[in-house]
C-alpha cells in the first residue's frame, strides 16, 4: 500500500536537520541544500504511489538527495572538491543510525552552547544564517578579510560541536 502524503510531510519535517545536513554534505552549500531538499520532498509527494512505507521513504529520500545533490553540485559548484560517491553512500548509511538519537537533548544543548560563544562568533553566525549574508558580504560589512570570516564560522561550528558533545556526555554520565 502506497505511503500517504501526510506521512511524507511529517517525516520530512521531523527529520529536516538530518536530511538537510546530508544534502549539505552532498551539494556543499547550505542554501543549495535547501533547494535539493525542497525538490526531493516535492518529488516524494509526486511519487507517493511508488513508495511503500516510511522505511522505504527513508532510503528513497537518501538516494534521491544524493543523486540530485551531486547533479546540482556538478553544475553549480563544479570546481569545488567533493567527497567520493562511495563515501557519500557510506555517510547515508550512518545517517540511519543517528535518527532521533538525542535530538531534543542536542537542541537544548545547542541553545546553551550558543550562549557560551564569543560575541563576535555569535554575531558572525547570526549574520551568516540569520540574515542570510554570504561570508564575502559579512567581510565587506565588518571590514575583515573573507578568509577570517570563514575561519570564524568554522571555529564557531567546531566549538559548538565540542560543547554539545560535552554537554550530552555530562548529562549521560549524570
Amino acid at each position: 500500500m502506497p505511503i500517504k502524503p501526510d506521512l511524507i510531510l511529517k517525516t520530512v519535517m521531523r527529520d529536516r536537520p538530518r536530511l538537510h545536513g546530508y544534502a549539505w554534505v552532498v551539494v556543499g552549500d547550505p542554501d543549495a541544500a535547501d533547494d535539493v531538499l525542497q525538490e526531493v520532498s516535492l518529488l516524494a509527494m509526486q511519487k507517493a504511489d511508488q513508495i511503500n512505507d516510511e522505511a522505504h521513504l527513508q532510503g528513497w529520500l537518501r538516494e534521491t538527495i544524493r543523486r540530485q545533490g551531486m547533479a546540482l553540485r556538478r553544475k553549480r559548484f563544479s570546481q569545488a572538491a567533493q567527497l567520493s560517491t562511495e563515501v557519500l553512500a557510506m555517510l547515508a548509511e550512518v545517517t540511519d543510525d543517528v535518527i532521533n538519537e538525542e535530538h531534543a537533548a542536542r537542541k537544548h544543548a545547542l541553545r546553551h552552547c550558543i550562549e557560551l560563544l564569543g560575541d563576535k562568533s555569535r554575531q558572525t553566525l547570526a549574520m551568516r544564517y540569520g540574515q542570510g549574508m554570504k561570508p564575502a558580504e559579512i567581510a565587506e560589512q565588518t571590514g575583515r578579510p573573507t578568509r577570517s570570516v570563514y575561519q570564524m564560522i568554522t571555529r564557531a561550528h567546531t566549538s559548538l560541536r565540542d560543547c554539545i558533545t560535552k554537554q550530552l556526555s555530562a548529562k549521560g554520565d549524570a
Partner: protein
Amino acid sequence: MADQPRDIFKPEFLEAYLLGRLTEEQVQTLDAHLRRDAATRRQFVRATEIMSMVRDEFQGRAEQGTVQSHEPLLADFDQLLADLSRMEAAASVIPAPACPADDAIEQEDANDAGSRSAHDLAAVGGYALRLALSSRPAKRIYAYAGVAAAVLLAFVLFNPFGGNEDATDAPFATDHPNDSIKPGPVGPALNSPVATLTATHNAEWAGGPASAGLGIGDELHPNQRLTLTAGFAEITTARGAIAIIEAPATIEFTHNNNALRLHTGKLMGICETETSKGFLVRTTHMDVIDLGTRFGVQVDADTTGVHVFEGDVAVSPPDALDPQQGAQLGIGQSASARAGGPPIIAQADPDLMFVRDWTAVTSAPKVTGPIRYTASVPTALDFNQTEADDHILLIPEHNGLRLSKDIPVSKAELLDGHRFRADSKVPAGTVVDTYLLHGDIVGDDPDKGINFRGSIRFDRPILGVIANGIDLSRSHRALGLKGVTYPGMQVTSIVAENAGLEKSFEDKTVDAFVISEDRRTLSVAFDTGGSVDQLRVLVLDDEEKPTN
C-alpha cells in the same frame, strides 16, 4: 592556501568541508578517513546535523519578532497533518465542484473527482512543503498557517494555481514556437512577486522609486524595471531560475514568473531545477528560452548575443509565431540577432565574457572607476585583441599559487628611464593570488589616447605589482594562464616592453600606480594610447605573514 599533508586529518575538516574551505588534497584526506573509520563517519554526520540546527536556530532568532520558538509551530503542524488526513479521507466521497472557467476540465473532474482531489491534495501539500522547507523561518510559518487554507482551496478549485494562468503566461509564453516550454502550474496573481533579489556584490542601482532601498531578499514585481550601474546582482525567478546580472544593465519584469526582459547589458542564466526549465530572457532582438542549461546573454543597442555554456537553449525572434524562425543551440554555440532578423548561429566566441557562477562574483575585489572585473578570462590579451574605450579589465589569473621562483615586483613608483622598475621581490614559496589589469582602446590610432583612473580594493595585502614591460613579459611564463595570448610573448618584443606602464612616453602618457598604506588598495592611472597597457598584481593568498 596552506597545503595539508595527505596523512594528517584535523577534526575541523568536517566543518571546513561543509563551508567549502578545504583544498582538493584536504578533501581527499577527509574522504580517506571517512572511508576507513566508522567513528569519523558518525562524527561527520553529527557535525552536519548540528550545523543545520545551528543554521535553523539563527534563522529562527532572526525572526524572533514574529516567532518565539519553533515548538508552537510544530504543534500547529500536527494539527495541520490531522486536517490533511481528514480531508484526504473526505476526498473520496465528496463530489468535486465544477470549475466554471473551463468546461472540459469540469467534465474531466466530474468523472474522476476522487483521484483528482487526491492529486490536487498532493500538489498543494507539495507546494506547502516547499514553503515549509524554505530556509526562511517566516516562510515556514506562512506555510504552516496557510497550508490548511490551501488544502481547503483544493476542494473548491480543481486547478488551484491555474486561476491566473493567462496572467502567468502573459505576455509572451503561450505564443512561443516551442510548445513544449510552458510555465509550470505554480504562478503568481497579477501583482504577485515574480522574482527575488537573492544576492548582490558591489551593486549600485540607478535612482528611481523602483530601485530605491533595494535589498537582498526583496521581492520583484511585474513591470518593475531596474538599472544596475555597478557590480553584480543575482535574481532568482519564482520558478527557481537564476540570473546573474552584470553592470551596466537594465532589466524589467513581466507577469511571467520565469522570465525577464534584458534591455541592455549582460546576464548569465542558470537553470538547474526542473521547475526553472523554460526560463525566458527577452531582448529587443531575440527570445532566449532555457532548456535546462547555463547560458549568457549580452545586449547592446543593435544586437543581442547568446552563448551556451551547458545544455541547450531555444532562440527565436521576439514573439515569433513561425517555428521555422527559431533554432536550438547546444554547448559551445553562439547566436546573434538584430532587430527584425532571425538569430544567426555561430560557434563559440572566445571574446564573450560572462561570469559563470556567483562564487566567481563574490571573490571579486571591489573596484571603483572604469575598472571592470570579469570572472571569465579572455583568451586573447595581445595588442588589438580585447579592446574597450570605456573601461579597463581586471582579470583574475591564479588563486592559491605557490611561487616556484622569486618574482620581481614594484611596491612604489621608482623609475628606470621612463619605465617603472622593480624595487623588491616576492620570494619563491609564497602563496599568492594574481590579477592582470588590461587596458587596450579600440583601434590603433597613434593619436588616440584615453585616461582611465580607478582603484581596486583587496581583502588581503598586496605584495607588489609588476609594471615594467620586460618584467611583465617574463612573468607570463610563471604567472600567465595557459591558452591565453599575452603581448609579444617574446622578452625582446617592443610590444611586450610597451605593454607595461610608463611614467612618460614621448610626453604623451603618464601611467601611475599607488599602493595604499594598509596595502589593500591599488590605485591606478592608465593613459592608454597606441599600445596595450597591462599591470600584474600579486596579492597574498592567505593570512600568512609576508616574507619580504
